[in-house]
């Protein structure tokens, strides 16, 4: 049932997503401006979506697709809220 080539492809995908998550976390730590960190947070939510889709394949239960919807909604709302926060902070305090 499980082809060794298919499981190898799944392992490669997991490794690539793991590397991408490390790179994005480095950007969250290093980001010079708050907006850079928010972009990296949005990308982290997209990586969460990717990992949930991969978990739906490896575990075989399609309930993880619902998790995808939840993570995407939370990521969108967090990005918009942080954007409003950054904009308001810049208009009140001048330079940031």
């Amino acid at each position, binding site marked *: 049932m499980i082809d060794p080539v298919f499981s190898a492809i799944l392992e490669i995908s997991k490794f690539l997503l793991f590397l991408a998550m490390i790179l994005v976390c480095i950007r969250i730590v290093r980001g010079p401006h708050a907006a850079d960190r928010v972009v990296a947070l949005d990308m982290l939510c*997209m990586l969460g979506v990717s990992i949930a889709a991969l978990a739906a394949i490896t575990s075989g239960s399609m309930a993880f697709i619902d998790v995808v919807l939840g993570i995407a909604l939370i990521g969108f709302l967090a990005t918009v809220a942080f*954007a409003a926060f950054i*904009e308001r902070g810049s*208009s009140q305090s001048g330079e940031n």
Partner: protein
Amino acid sequence: MLMWFSAFFVLIGSIITFIAGLGVLRLPDFFMRMHAATKAGVVGPSLLLVGAGFHEPSLATWIKIALAVLFLFMTTPIAAHVLGKAGFLGGVHLWQGTSRNDLKKVLSPSAFLETESARPDEKRKADMMPGSPATRQDH
């Protein structure tokens, strides 16, 4: 056969997602980073979701996957637009190699502050235009 479709989409999607993460780390500018995270960051998870749909195809799964992909494609441009405007007003430094900045003529952080402080003056001027109720009350 469907398993190989699934493997193809999963591999391409994870490669594109990795490229998006690499761009978020390595590109020199906030707006370039946002470009990487927005475009490649939507296509990669969408391809992974399509690969998950090919792994166990059923109508309910495909409906959920279509909803998720549609949601991603609808919300990510809105979030990127709002965040780009907020970053520009927040004073993000552009890359030194930027040759042209047309948005600065319309919407720069300093201009935004001036218009914020000068908004009452503009309102008064607008009220004192001929024909407006304010001028009629003055006479």
